[in-house]
């Protein structure tokens, strides 16, 4: 690690001292994370984990903590809401907006902001918050925990199936002054429970801001969690996110993540199979253009027998965009009968676009089925020819095929309203990229 800190870090760390949360244990975790952040540096491309993602554009900037919450117009917000949602937690520039949120109280599930959660469920929070989300992971997870003030907390009781998706909406108002926010999500799914969590990052205006979200998902035996993560940050924004997932025996975790926005974005997903027979499905799409960079790092740790993984990732890069994918599958000693399959495909739409991929298998058990495939190229000439023979123009045919390429991931989204809205966005993107 570099001793001299960048302006980026000194500004972030030099910001106003934190008020106590009133919880000694939480203050301690935050202090430890702050210490870690103070000792850390912005990762450089010399580090294996960051070799394709140059953080120099980020490190050059300085961001201040958000001084006060903006109040976006209800009209602007309304368009982003999801009527089908069972519950909604809205954060504006990282601050919980109670007025915009909808928190029904019914048996079996509690959807809360951190403040309420600390009041109602102190024991659960102490046991779960910052348990999976390792602040030691890197400087960004350390920052998130060090400045932990706000969070979306979802607790599903054993055996309960939540009737609709839980929508956690992060709105970025955009402002002239670059600011930093640290969204945090904690989901605790009880045994045999069912729920769908949508983490939605949307920009309402333009402006440079830095966001370092962190999500913790704890899944009890035989529970099923569907996690949808949409990143539509502003064009000059930076998002470096991490999600830590732990699965118990027989549980299912399905993640669909879509990255469309931000100047530079990175998502690190770490899934740990904590017991036997866990099932994981991860589908990702990064569709970027201009000078965007989207980096996806996933790691699935098969620590116990009979785990299953199905993963697809698709990148569409236009303009001078740079897409990065690193998908690690680890099968530990003793994790017999693991069945893991990963597929990566990248589509380069323009001359200056670039894609770096590193599918990675690390296997220490012999009775396993593991496969990965990676392909990078352009649209299939035969498919194009076919569409043209059916009367489609060159551009139309290209757009259709590009859309179909991305739609493979979009179609995995189990919430129809989100799926169709995203399909529209992707279709527009396809036209823009052309």
């Amino acid at each position, binding site marked *: 690690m570099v001793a001299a800190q960048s302006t980026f870090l000194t500004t972030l760390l030099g910001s106003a001292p934190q008020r106590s949360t009133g919880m000694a244990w939480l203050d301690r975790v935050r202090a430890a994370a702050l210490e870690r952040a103070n000792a850390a540096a912005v990762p450089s491309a010399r580090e*294996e984990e960051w070799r*394709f993602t140059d953080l120099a554009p980020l490190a050059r900037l300085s961001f201040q903590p958000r001084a006060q919450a903006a109040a976006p117009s209800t009209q602007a917000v309304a368009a982003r809401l999801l009527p089908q949602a069972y519950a909604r937690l809205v954060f504006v520039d990282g601050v919980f907006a109670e007025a915009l949120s909808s928190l029904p109280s019914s048996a079996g599930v509690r959807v809360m902001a951190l403040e309420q959660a600390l009041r109602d469920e102190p024991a659960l929070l102490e046991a779960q918050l910052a348990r999976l989300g390792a602040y030691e992971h890197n400087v960004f997870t350390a920052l998130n925990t060090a400045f932990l003030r706000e969070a979306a907390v979802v607790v599903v009781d054993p055996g309960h199936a939540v009737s609709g998706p839980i929508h956690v909406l992060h709105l970025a108002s955009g402002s002239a002054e670059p600011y930093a926010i640290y969204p945090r999500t904690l989901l605790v799914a009880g045994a045999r429970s069912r729920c769908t969590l949508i983490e939605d990052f949307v920009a309402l205006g333009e402006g440079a801001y830095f966001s370092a979200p962190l999500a913790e998902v704890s899944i009890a035996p035989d529970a099923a969690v569907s996690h949808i993560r949409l990143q539509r940050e502003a064009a000059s924004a930076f998002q470096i996110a991490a999600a830590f997932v732990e699965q118990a025996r027989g549980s299912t975790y399905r993640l669909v993540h879509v990255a469309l926005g931000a100047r530079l974005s990175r998502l690190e997903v770490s899934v740990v199979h904590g017991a036997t027979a866990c099932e994981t499905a991860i589908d990702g799409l990064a569709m970027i253009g201009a000078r965007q960079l989207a980096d996806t790092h996933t790691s699935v740790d098969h620590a116990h027998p009979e785990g299953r993984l199905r993963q697809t990732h698709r990148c569409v890069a236009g303009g001078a965009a740079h897409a990065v994918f690193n998908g690690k599958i680890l099968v530990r*000693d*003793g994790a*017999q009968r693991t069945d893991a399959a990963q597929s990566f495909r*990248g589509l*380069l*739409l*323009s*001359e*200056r*676009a*670039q*894609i*770096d*991929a*590193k*599918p*990675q*298998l*690390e*296997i*220490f*058990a*012999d*009775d*396993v*089925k*593991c*496969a*990965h*495939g*990676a*392909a*990078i*190229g*352009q649209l299939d000439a035969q498919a194009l020819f076919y569409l043209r023979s059916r009367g489609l123009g060159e551009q139309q045919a290209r757009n259709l095929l590009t859309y179909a390429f991305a739609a493979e991931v979009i179609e995995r989204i189990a919430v129809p309203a989100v799926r169709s809205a995203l399909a529209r966005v992707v279709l527009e993107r396809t036209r823009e990229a052309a």
Partner: protein
Amino acid sequence: MSAVIQDLVNRPYEAGFVTPIEADVAPRGLSEETIRLISAKKREPDWLLEFRLQAYRHWLTMSEPKWPNVHYPPIDFQDIIYYAAPKPKKLKSMDEVDPELMRTFEKLGVPMNERAALAGVAVDVIFDSVSVATTYKQKLAEVGIIFCSISEAVASHPELVRKYLGSVVPPADNYYAALNSAVFTDGSFCFIPKGVKCPMDLSTYFRINTQDSGQFERTLIVAEEGAAVSYLEGCTAPKFDTNQLHAAVVELVALDHADIKYSTVQNWYAGDENGVGGIFNFVTKRGLCKGASSKISWTQVETGSAITWKYPSCVLLGDNSIGEFYSVALTNHRQQADTGTKMIHLGNNTRSRIISKGISAGHSNNSYRGLVKIGAKADNARNYSQCDSMLIGSRCGANTFPYIQVRNRSAQVEHEATTSKIGEDQLFYFASRGVGAEEAVSMIINGFCKDVFQQLPMEFAVEATKLLGLKLEGSVG
């Protein structure tokens, strides 16, 4: 595992013996003095001494690579003998070769003269860093091919060596390449002039003999316009308890329409079942497809060494050039291998193909690490990679680290990887057809490696098949 199988797994290294030959040994340790000594012993021109010293000075500023997925105790570079030469003797024919040396080859089951004659192979024998016998020189000279030790080439064709040495692997390329550039003692030089197709497979037979003598081989092969050559490298080493460092550099240069095929069977001593002893094999191999439509093909069967760190690569500079990499890497007991390839596409319409088969058994760890890079100006580049792993037993590891970097949208890059094992059901099927477990394993392994073996020259393919069978039979059961 049955007793027979146990016995087979624990079969001692058959080539483990030491032939006492009086060696001309340099004192231990590395300094500018050592390098001057090596250079003086070999009566080298000043430019080569300068080349060595510059590499050495750069090496001092470098640090050992830590990124490979291998673990070993720190190497004391001051505790290595950098120069050991057999007693100088003039040899006119094979009959004059030291009888001790000939006996060594016989013990190995490879009587050199017979093998050379029968297989039509010219063998440039490397015995402790200095060539002591070169055969078939005459026949090759008739067509203008230069095939000799690199020290000889420095004396007889300094202009060629000077032009190409370090042109593919620069002295400062990496830690071990820099070390090799500073202290290399000998190796092979091969020059195929314009339009010549080499009439026979060229071969070097490697042995490590003097205990603790690090081996720093340097091989340089240049194929001019339209030339073609197939080069074979094979090695076995006697059994020693202290680790021996082997840091070779191989450079291949292919000009327009030239074709170089480089095949290796590597069976250095791997250490005992507890991982004691064995060779550290840290090798830099790289081919430059400099000319249009040139082709470089690497085929390797890696079965030995305690640690293998090796990435035979192709830089596809010429338009329409082709790079190939076929590899079988087998690790057993405590062996560690981190091997793969790099395909750097720089020219238009360049194509590359990677077929890698990794087999891990025992407590070993086998990693494939590959890079496919398509430069921004390389239009219509194609790559196909396939890396399959087979695990035998549940205490070994198989890893794949493929890096794919694409900077050009017309590129088509495909990578596939699978993992499999030898299943009880397969063995049961073989048993039901009357085939015993050992033969069945051998057949399954050979089937698994078929795509690579069929790229090997015939006599090598036979040796490789035998070798894998020997190394693995009985690991299952």
